[in-house]
C-alpha cells in the first residue's frame, strides 16, 4: 500500500517535468512553465524572501525569457542550485536554463557540454580587505589567509594569481557567500575574494563599509551569463535574443513604462521588428511575434533591470562600469536585430 505514493509521485513528476529530450522550447511551451536554475540565495542577483518570492538581476532575466516564451513573466519556477550542483542540474534536464552568476570558460563549453549564450554581467575577481590591515595591493598579501568559495572558478584563479606572483597564501574554503562574509567579518581571513560585484554587494551591506576596501587588482575575467545545454541551438537562440532584446531596448530608449507609446509612435524599423510590429522575426524563433515586447514589458530593459536590482541607490550599489552600453563606454553590445 505504501508504494502507492511512490508510483503516484512517479506519475505526477513524469507529468509535470515532461520530456526533456525533445527541443527545450517545445518542452517549456507544453509544460506552460519555465524552470530556471538560480542561486540558493545571493542578495541582488537571485534570492527568495520569506514568502518564496524571488527577485534579483539574474531572476529578472529568467522572467524575461518566461515572458517571451509563455507570455507571462510569472510562469517560471526557480530551482535553487549550489555552486556544486548547478551544472549537473542543467545537464540532467532538471532545469531549462541556468542563470546563476556562472562564468563562461572554455572547459565548461567543452568538457561540461554547456553553451553560454550571452554575457549579462562582465565581472572580474577581486579582493576585499579591512582598511586597517594596511594593504593597498593584492601583491602585498604574501602569507595572508584568504576566504574562498568552493566549486567556482575563483579558487583556480586564486591559485594561479599567487603562483604567478610567487607569493604564498593560506586558503580557507567556505561553502557559500554568507559563510564567507561571516568569516571575513570575524577576521578568520585577512582577505575575501570573489567576483567584484559580489565584493561590492558584501561591502555595501556591512555596517561599517568605510572600514573595508576593495583592492585595485582584478585578477581574472569573469563573464557571467545564462547557460543552456549543448546541442539545443534553437533554445539557445531564444535565450540569447531575449537577452539582446533587453539590451537593444535600452539602446533605443524603450522602457517598461513607455513601450506602448514607442510602439505607436516609432519610425525606427529595428524597433518595430523587435516589438513585433513589422516582419515575423520572433516567429522565426518559434515564438509569438510579440514575444520580445512581452519580455521588455514584463521586466523592463537591461538598464532598468540593472538599476532596480543592483544599481546605484540599491543596497548593492554597483556602478555600471563595464556593463554600460557600448555607446557609453561599456561592453554591452547587441548584434543588430534584423
Amino acid at each position, binding site marked *: 500500500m505504501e508504494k502507492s505514493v511512490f508510483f503516484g509521485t512517479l506519475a505526477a513528476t*513524469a507529468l509535470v517535468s515532461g520530456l526533456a529530450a525533445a527541443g527545450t522550447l517545445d518542452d517549456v511551451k507544453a509544460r506552460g512553465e519555465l524552470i530556471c536554475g538560480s542561486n540558493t540565495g545571493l542578495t541582488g542577483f537571485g534570492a527568495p524572501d*520569506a514568502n518564496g518570492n524571488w527577485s534579483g538581476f539574474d531572476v529578472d532575466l529568467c522572467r524575461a525569457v518566461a515572458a517571451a516564451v509563455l507570455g507571462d513573466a510569472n510562469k517560471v519556477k526557480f530551482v*535553487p542550485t549550489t555552486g556544486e550542483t548547478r551544472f549537473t542540474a542543467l545537464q540532467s534536464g532538471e532545469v531549462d536554463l541556468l542563470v546563476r552568476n556562472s562564468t563562461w570558460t572554455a572547459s565548461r563549453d567543452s568538457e561540461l557540454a554547456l553553451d553560454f549564450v550571452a554575457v549579462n554581467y562582465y565581472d572580474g575577481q577581486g579582493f576585499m580587505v579591512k582598511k586597517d590591515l594596511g594593504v593597498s595591493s593584492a601583491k602585498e598579501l604574501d602569507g595572508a589567509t584568504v576566504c574562498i568559495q568552493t566549486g567556482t572558478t575563483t579558487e583556480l584563479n586564486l591559485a594561479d594569481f599567487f603562483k604567478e606572483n610567487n607569493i604564498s597564501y593560506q586558503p580557507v574554503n567556505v561553502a557559500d*557567500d554568507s559563510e564567507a562574509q561571516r568569516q571575513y567579518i570575524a577576521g578568520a581571513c585577512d582577505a575575501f575574494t570573489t567576483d567584484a560585484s559580489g565584493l561590492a554587494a558584501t561591502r555595501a551591506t556591512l555596517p561599517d563599509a568605510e572600514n573595508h576596501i576593495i583592492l585595485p587588482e582584478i585578477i581574472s575575467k569573469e563573464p557571467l551569463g545564462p547557460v543552456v545545454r549543448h546541442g539545443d541551438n534553437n533554445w539557445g537562440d531564444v535565450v540569447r535574443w531575449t537577452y539582446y532584446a533587453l539590451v537593444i531596448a535600452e539602446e533605443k530608449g524603450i522602457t517598461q513604462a513607455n513601450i506602448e507609446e514607442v510602439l505607436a509612435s516609432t519610425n525606427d524599423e529595428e524597433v518595430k521588428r523587435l516589438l513585433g510590429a513589422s516582419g515575423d522575426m520572433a516567429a522565426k524563433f518559434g515564438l509569438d511575434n510579440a514575444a520580445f515586447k512581452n519580455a521588455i514589458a514584463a521586466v523592463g530593459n537591461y538598464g532598468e533591470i540593472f538599476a532596480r536590482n543592483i544599481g546605484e541607490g540599491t543596497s548593492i550599489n554597483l556602478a555600471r562600469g563595464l556593463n554600460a552600453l557600448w555607446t557609453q563606454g561599456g561592453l554591452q553590445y547587441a548584434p543588430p536585430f534584423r
Partner: protein
Amino acid sequence: MAQGFTRTEMLPAMPPPVSESGTLKWLRENLFSGWLNSTLTAAATLFIAFVAWNSFPWFWHSVWNAGSLNECRQIVTASAGEGATGACWAFLRPWWGAFIFGHQYPVDERWRPVLAFGLLFAALAPVLFAGQKRNLTIILAVVAAFLVLTLYLASAPSLAFALAILGVLALLALAQVQPGKLLWFTLAFPALCFWLLWGGSIWTPIVAVAGFGVLYLVFRLASPVIGLAPAAGAGFVAAVLWWMFVDAPVADALQSAIPIQLLWIASDKFGGFLLSIVIGVTGITFSLPLGILLALGRQSDMPIVKMLCVIFIETIRGVPLITLLFVAAFVLGFFLPPQANFDLLLRVLILVTFFAAAYLAEVLRGALAALPRGQYEAADALGLDYWRAQRLVILPQALKISIPGIVSTFIGLFKDTTLVVIVALYEPLKGITHLVRQDINWKGIYWEPYIFVGAIFFIFCFSMSRYSKYLEDKLKTDHR
C-alpha cells in the same frame, strides 16, 4: 536473683540524628560521601555556575519583537545597558512559516501539511495500540483537539476544516465499535497524505492504490489455478501493467467526470521541518517492506538471493549518507532513461529509502535471530509453507520486538535528513538559516536560528527516544 530493671512501657521513638535524615542525609550520601565525590560535586557545581553565568543574561535579555537585527541590538542596549548581550528571536516572526513549511510552500495551503501531520498520528495509533480501545480513544481525541487548534491557526478553508474534524470524529466512533477496522485507515493514509501534501487530482492516488487492488484480485483468482508463487508474479505483472497503461487515462477520465482537486504543489516548494518530516517518514515507511524482504533474503537458504541481499545491505551501510545523496543529486539521472526526469526530492527519497532499508534489515535480522528456534520449528511442524510461516508466525513476533529498533532507526534518519542541504534542498538547520542570514534585515545572526532548530529537533527526537525506551522496557517484561 535480683530482679533487674524492666521497662514496662515503650519509650517514644526519637527522631533520627539530624545528619542521618532529611536533606542533610541525602546530601551527604549523594554528594559528599568521600573526598572524590565532594571534588566531583564541587567541579560540577562550578561548571553549572559557569554556564549559567555566561548564558543566562543572554537569554534573559531576549528580544521577541523587532524588524531587524540592528533594531534588536538597539533594544538590548536600551534596556540592559551598553555592552549587554541578548538573544534576538524576532527573526522568527517573518521566518517562522519558512522554518516549518519552507519559504516556498504557498501560505494559503499551509493547513494541508498540518492536517497530514495530525492524521499521521491517527494512522500510527492502530499500529502502536492494536485493539486497545482506551489508548486509541485517547490518541484520536488528542488528534482531534490538535487539529481543531492548528487548522484554525493555519486558517484552513471551512469546508476542509469541517471534513477533517468530521473524519477524525468518525474514526473516534469507529474506535469505540470496531477498533480493528481502524487499520484500514492506516493503509489508506499514505495515499491521503500524498494527496494532501502535493495536491492535484484526488483520483491520481486513488487509481494508483487501485493497482494494489488489481494485484490482490489477480492473486486471489489465479492462486487456486496456478499456485501461490506464480499467482503472486502474475498479480505483480498485472499491477505494473495497470500503472503503466491504465492508470493515467482512468485518472484523467475520472477527474474530468468528477473534478475534485487541490492546488498542485511541486516538491521543490517543500522546505523546513515539513521537508525533514516528509523525508524521514516516507523513508521509513517505504523502507519497511523493502527491509523485511532484505532481512528475509539474508536469512534465506538460497545462496544467490542471500548474496545479493548481503551485498546490497553491506554496501549501503558501508558508505556515508552524504555519498548516497551525491548519487541522488549527480549520478542517479544517468541510470534512468533519458526522457525520465525525476525531481530532486524524489531522487533523494529513493536513496534515503535504500539507506533506511539497509539499516532496518539489520534491525529485523536481529529480531529474527532473537526469536526462539522453536517458533520456526513449530511453524514447520504445522505444515505451513514459507510465506505462511513468515506471515502468521515469524514476522508478527519479529516486528513486535523490533519496534524499538525501528524507532531508533527513525530517530537517526530524522536527524540525518538535515544532510540534504548538501544537495541544495531547504532543510531547516542549514538551508533555511542560510536564507535568514541572507535576508538583508538579519545579516549577521548566527546563534539564534541554530538554537531554535536544535531545540525543535531535540523535542522530537527526545520524545521519540523516550517512547522507544518505554516500549523496550515493556517488551522486556513480556519475555521474562
